[in-house]
Each structure stands twice: as structure tokens, then as C-alpha cells.
């Protein structure tokens, strides 16, 4: 067990190095200094306290979609639909955040709950299609992503939902917003505070929200769910050996649908946190935003382990955020940054996939020889 973790860490580190090298080569041949780019990237992430906070804030949706993919994966399912579940969660959050009036202590949890239910329904549909009719979840969740996207765009045509003269919904009410220190930053005491505590004040300039804490809490809960609860035991049993689980009387179909519903709820919560903490509204989407797809990479890099997902989301969000500095300061074209990020993800993900495949082959061999 220990040894396997060690090899995994080594693979991961060397993959990241390889990824950066490849990105550097791309930059070099386009006439930029890779070393300066790396320096800028690093400074863009850790250069100021507020950058770090920003990276954390931007990691929030990825943590949730990553957890979403991981839970399904533990049950042996591949949830490509975190994207759509995220969109639904966001849409629900925008609607409930504006149209429902409640005091803050109730409003925020109520929005979370509704978004999670929305996501869960969306994930659950794929689960039921799989359990009942044997329809591959990979296919159905991809299709559901489009349904989510177009439902979002369709609903945003209606007056009452659409804010007049805009392409977006109404902004959620203040009782549903989860930024921290927003009031403080507009108050009179802000200016003297800034003078006295420049570092803290700098950090607070990033719009830190409750989302960061909710995401960490969600990771902890998922960890306990999988490790300690009855449901987690069932999910893992089904994921490891569906046949034996069925034979021993575990309700395999229920567990599969259920895990996709939980998966959807997590992605839906991600959408909710994003709206209440960052955007405050949802807009017409021309294309998918990619939070759910990034969740797949995040889960892969984080080995479907909640703690690993926290780290990999930070990493992911970090290179995305730091890249903005690189772009601004060196004038590198966006494409190069995207290629670089893509290459890193590729090199990080491929060895992991490769390792999994090798492990599966080896395991199969060993199982066959167990006698």
C-alpha cells in the first residue's frame, strides 16, 4: 500500500515536470522565455496573498465537480455529466436566490439544498436509465449536458427570469450571497484597517466566500461517506465487483442510481457556490464552461480521493489563474497558455490512466494465478 502511494507520487511529480517542460518547449519555439514564464506563473499564484485566495476561490467549483466524478467512479461509473449537473445547480441557485425571500440563515442553506436536489435529479436520471434500461451513463450524461445547457438558455428568455436589457438572470438577493467581508470592505473602518494590516487587507481584496469552507467540508464529508458509512461500503463493493455484489444481495441498481444522484448533488452544489459566491447570476451559455469536464481531470489527478481532489483542484486552478499573469506580463497568446495547460493535464493524466491499466492487467493476471 505504502509502496503504491510512493510510485504514484513519483509518477505524478515527474508528469508535472514533463508537462512544464513540454509547455516550455511550446513557449520557446514561439519566441518566449520559458523560464520567465515559469517565474511569472509562480508569482502569479504565490506573489501576493490575494492571489492565493483567488486561486482557492476559483478552485471551489472544481473541488465539487471533482468529488462528483469521484463518487460515481467509486461505484464503477463514469460521470461525464458533472457539467450539466453544475449548470442545473447554478440555474436553480439563481432562481431560488432571487425569487425566494428568506432571512440569510435560512436562505443560503435553502439555495444549497435546492441546487443539490436539482443536480441529484439530473444525475439520478442517468442512474435510472442505466439501472433500468442498461443505457450507458457515459452516453446519457453527455446528452444530459446539452439538455442542461439549452434549458438554461431557454429559461433565460422569459421575463421574470431574465433581467431586462441583459443576457443574464436577476442577481441573487443579498440574503443569498456568500461573500465574506463584503460589507466590511465598503465600511468606514476598511481604510484604516488597510493601513495597519496590509498583508491581510491584500488577501481580503480577493472575494473570499463561504464556498471555500463549504468545499473543504464537502471533501471531508465525502471522505467519511465512502470510508465509514453503509452507503459507502455498498458503493465500493459495487465498484470493485458488481457481480459478487449482486450475488451477495447488495441492491446493485439502487446503489448505482444513488451514487449518480449523489454525484449530481455535489456538482449541483458546485454550481450553487459559484453563483452565490462569484457570479451572482447565470447567463446565456454559448458553450459549456467546462467546470464539469475539468472535474474529470481533477478527479483523475487526485486519484478519486477527497484529499487528493482538494490538492489537485488547487493545482488546476493555480495554473489557470497564474497563467493570466504570464499572459498579461509577457504577452503570450492565450492559445499558448491553453496548449501548455492542456499538455500538463495530458502528462499528468496519461501516466495515471496508464498506471491504472497496467495495474488492472497485473491484477487480472494475479487473480487468475491466485491458485
Amino acid at each position, binding site marked *: *500500500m505504502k509502496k503504491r502511494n510512493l510510485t504514484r507520487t513519483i509518477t505524478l511529480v515527474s508528469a508535472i515536470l514533463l508537462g512544464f517542460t513540454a509547455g516550455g518547449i511550446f513557449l520557446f519555439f514561439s519566441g518566449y522565455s520559458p523560464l520567465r514564464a515559469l517565474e511569472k506563473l509562480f508569482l502569479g499564484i504565490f506573489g501576493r496573498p490575494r492571489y492565493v485566495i483567488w486561486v482557492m476561490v476559483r478552485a471551489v467549483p472544481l473541488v465539487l465537480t471533482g468529488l462528483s466524478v469521484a463518487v460515481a467512479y467509486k461505484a464503477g461509473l463514469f460521470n461525464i455529466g458533472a457539467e450539466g449537473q453544475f449548470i442545473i445547480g447554478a440555474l436553480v441557485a439563481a432562481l431560488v436566490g432571487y425569487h425566494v425571500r428568506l432571512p440569510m440563515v435560512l436562505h443560503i442553506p435553502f439555495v444549497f439544498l435546492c441546487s443539490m436536489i436539482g443536480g441529484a435529479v439530473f444525475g439520478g436520471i442517468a442512474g435510472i436509465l442505466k439501472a433500468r434500461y442498461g443505457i450507458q451513463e457515459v452516453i446519457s450524461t453527455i446528452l444530459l449536458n446539452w439538455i442542461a445547457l439549452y434549458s438554461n438558455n431557454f429559461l433565460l428568455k422569459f421575463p421574470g427570469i431574465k433581467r431586462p436589457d441583459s443576457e443574464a438572470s436577476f442577481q441573487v438577493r443579498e440574503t443569498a450571497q456568500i461573500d465574506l467581508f463584503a460589507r466590511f470592505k465598503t465600511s468606514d473602518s476598511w481604510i484604516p484597517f488597510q493601513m495597519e494590516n496590509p498583508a491581510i487587507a491584500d488577501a481580503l481584496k480577493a472575494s473570499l466566500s463561504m464556498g471555500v469552507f463549504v468545499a473543504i467540508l464537502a471533501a471531508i464529508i465525502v471522505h467519511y461517506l465512502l470510508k*465509514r*458509512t*453503509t*452507503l*459507502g*461500503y*455498498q458503493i*465500493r*463493493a459495487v465498484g*470493485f*465487483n458488481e*457481480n*459478487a*455484489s*449482486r*450475488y*451477495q*444481495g*447488495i*441492491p446493485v441498481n439502487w446503489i448505482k442510481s444513488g451514487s449518480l444522484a449523489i454525484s449530481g448533488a455535489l456538482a449541483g452544489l458546485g454550481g450553487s457556490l459559484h453563483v452565490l459566491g462569484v457570479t451572482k447570476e447565470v447567463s446565456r451559455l454559448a458553450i459549456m464552461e467546462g467546470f464539469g469536464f475539468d472535474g474529470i481531470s481533477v478527479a483523475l489527478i487526485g486519484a478519486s480521493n477527497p484529499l487528493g481532489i482538494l490538492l489537485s483542484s488547487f493545482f488546476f486552478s493555480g495554473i489557470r489563474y497564474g497563467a493570466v499573469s504570464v499572459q498579461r506580463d509577457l504577452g503570450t497568446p492565450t492559445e499558448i497558455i491553453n496548449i501548455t495547460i492542456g499538455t500538463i493535464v495530458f502528462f499528468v493524466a496519461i501516466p495515471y490512466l496508464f498506471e491504472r491499466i497496467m495495474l488492472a492487467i497485473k*491484477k487480472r*493476471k*494475479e*487473480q*487468475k*494465478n*491466485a*491458485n
Partner: protein
Amino acid sequence: MTETDAVKLTNITKRFPSVLANDNINFVLKKGEIHALLGENGAGKTTLMNILYGLQRADSGTIEVYGRPVSIHNPNDALSLKIGMVHQHFMLFEPFTVIENIMLGREIHQCGVLDRKKARKKVVDLSESFGLTVDPDSYISEISVAMQQRVELLRILYQGADILILDEPTAVLSPQEIVEFGAILRKLVTSGKSVIVITHKLKEIIDFADRCTVVSRGKVVNTLSVSDVDAHALASMMIGHELQAQVQSHKNAPGPRLLSLQNIYAEDDRGHTAVQGVTLDVHAGEILALTGVDGNGQREIIEVLAGVRKASSGSILLRDQEIQNYSPRMLYESGCANIPEDRHKDGLVFKFTVAENIALRTYRNYVEGPFLRFDKMNHDAVSLIQDFNIYPADPMHAVGEMSGGNQQKVIIARELVDNPEFIVAAHPTRGLDVGAASYVQQSLVQEKERGAAILLISFDLDEILQIANRIAIIYNGKIIAVKSASDLTREQLGLGFAGIAE
């Protein structure tokens, strides 16, 4: 070291995180001999052979093949040294034909095009010279397990193996097939091949091996010539003390009918009607053995009784109550236990611990709110581990990393733990060493005497004759005879296997 040694293993040591699987093992396979390797479950036999075949690396020790020191890193290295291995679980590709399976990886090409003719001729020649008769054009999914085994053997011969390693080859064979298998092995060695056979059946060793090596807890106890020993001596050498008396089975009078199969029809995976109107009653307090050559509908009956396959017609009564549409869980709750045939596929979750596997059926007992009490689960597993002598004796050990026999014990422990009323036991002692096998048989007898009804699916004649009250013979999906065990002889059973019931 002389020219006559095919393989010489010297001081082989292999340590797994929790056990020393091979501890300074010395082993010599002479050229042209059949060498049996025996030892208790978990003694390290498979590990040793995996090392010779390149599937695992020894921590230390040397391997010599025909007098030459070699290092074997993978099965390809082994094959180039003319070493071939047949695993207990076959590795054949079902949608392919016999000949395609044999050719796989060693295709004969003619400018990039498969030369089937040449390959076919080679296969036919091989099968004729060793009596390995198979139809080269049948699909693997259509031939019996015994035939599949021949295909595996042909495959390694085709690849040019001179040193053959066979891991528990006879476990899946019926008695008649075992006799034929012995004859094939003889032919192989007379043509200059050398064979290592792992087996738990002492009688077979006496029947067809030349020498045997006994290992125990990773160490070699002795290597001796088979003509010098009898089964009894071998057994006590293996387990380190005298084998207990034979399983005691009182032929008690059975009670009322507990389970009844009435005119059951069922299809196999390919949609053929594999079970054709089976009617059987199993009474409380009896062991009914269902026997016959593998592939005559036994698997489908087992699965119907486990609730994972629907019968196409007929009814199943448990205490006169229809249970045909029960789910596995409902069956378990109404007191049915099921020891499946394929422990890898249906029996165990390899990545789970022993305790988690034992709890697959009973985990609801450990529920506390949303949580599962893993500590209690482990605690309860400890006593079962002791009762069933499961090794390593650690509830947290991953089942996938245990020896085959110990995996089987985990299943049996799980199924017998809460006094089931009706037990389907499919090959319950397959892969178990003599001591463990007799313990399991004794447990089944105890269950029976407690009043359980047991349907034993087996083709181990000694086992059947020793513990069954009645014997039903299945052939082509039909029951062709049901007799009291005391009225049947081995010969009659043999005929029954061939579909002849007088």
C-alpha cells in the same frame, strides 16, 4: 547439477508485506518426470511457480534451467526457455475458436497473412501425438471445461514448451476426465517433457506422479519418490501432524421436504435451454448431491437458486412457499445460503478485506445510523477466521492477496455463519487442502445434522459418497437418476456421468 535436471531452484525466497511466502526453497525438476507439488493452502506453491514463470520476482535465490543459470523477468522469458504454465483459471478468449486461441501470439505469417493451414497442421499433429483430442474449429464458449484445459495445454505445447507447470489442473475435472488426464501427462513425459503439477488430491499424486515435493508455510518439508509413500503419510507430512479421522456422517433419517424444484427450465447466457425440466426435492437434514460432468446445467441451477438468474418456467418452493422471484437478498433473509462456483466472479470482492467480504451479506447487522461499525465487523470476523483456520489470520487483510484455498474458506465462513436452513454448496472444497477440505465437509455434515437441507454440487466422488445422503445425476439439463448414496457404486456414477442410467 547434472544434465538431467530440467529446473533447479536454489534458495528461493519471496516475502509479501504480511507473509514470507517462500522461505529458502530448493526444488529440482528432473528431465522427463512428473513432479507433484503439494502443501496446505497458502503454503506458497503458486508463488513459487509464478516466480519460475516470470509472473513474480523472487527476493533472492537462483534459477537454473537445463543446468544454465537464468533470470526470468516475464512470461516471455519463460517461454523462450521453453517453460509454459497453465493456470487454474483458464485464460482463453471465449469468442474465438480453439485454433485461434492456440495460435494467439504465435501466429504463423506468410507475408503478413495468417497461415492457418500450417498452424492447423501443427495443432492437429500435437493433439494426435499426445491424445489431446479437441475439435479445432469449435468456439471456446461451446466446449466443456475439460476440453478448455486441453486447449490450454495445446497452447503451451504449440508455443514449444518442454517444461510444463500445471496449477491445480484436476480440480475442474470429473473422475473419468482425471484418468484421461493422467494418461496424457504420461505421454508428455515419455516424449521428453517435464511436468510440475500442483494438486491437493493425494490419490492423484500416487496415481500419476514420479516424485513429489511437500511445502509447508513457505518451506520445503521433503522431496520424495512417490513409490515410497502412501496418501496417509503424505497428508501428515503436509499438515505436520496426523490427519484427523475421516468425516463422520451419520446417515440420519431426513426430515420433511424443505426445498423443491418443480419442472424448472432455464437458459444459459447464450440463450440455449440449459436446464430442461428439473424436478428435485431436498429435505431438511439431508445432503443431496447433484453431480455430473461440468456444463450440464449445474451452473444455471446454482444461479437460479442464488436469485441471479430467472428460471424460464417451473416453480421453486421453500417450505411450500414460492420463491421463484426472490432477489438474492430475500433469499438470504429467508434462510438460503449459496457457495458460488466461481469465487472470483461471484464470491468475493478482491479489494475488500476479509472482514468486509464476510460482511457482504450481513453488513446490515453493523449499521448504526448512517455509519457502519467496521470495528465490530472486524471483531466478529476474528472468531470466524479462527474457526475456519483462515490464513493469514488478519481481518484487515485484502482477500485478493490471499491464496486460493484461503479465499474459498472466507466464502464458506460467510455462508455458514448464521445457521442457514438451505445451503447450495457448489464445489465447496475445490482448491482446498486435505485438512481444510475435511473441515468443510465436516461443517456441512454438522449443518445437515442441525437440520439444514443441503444441495451439494460436486463431482468429487469421494466427497459425494462420503457425505451425501442421496445423489442426483444430471445430464444434458435433465436429472437422469436420483438414488440413495448407499445404493450407488463408483462405476454406476461413472456411467451416469456419461448419460447412462440403468
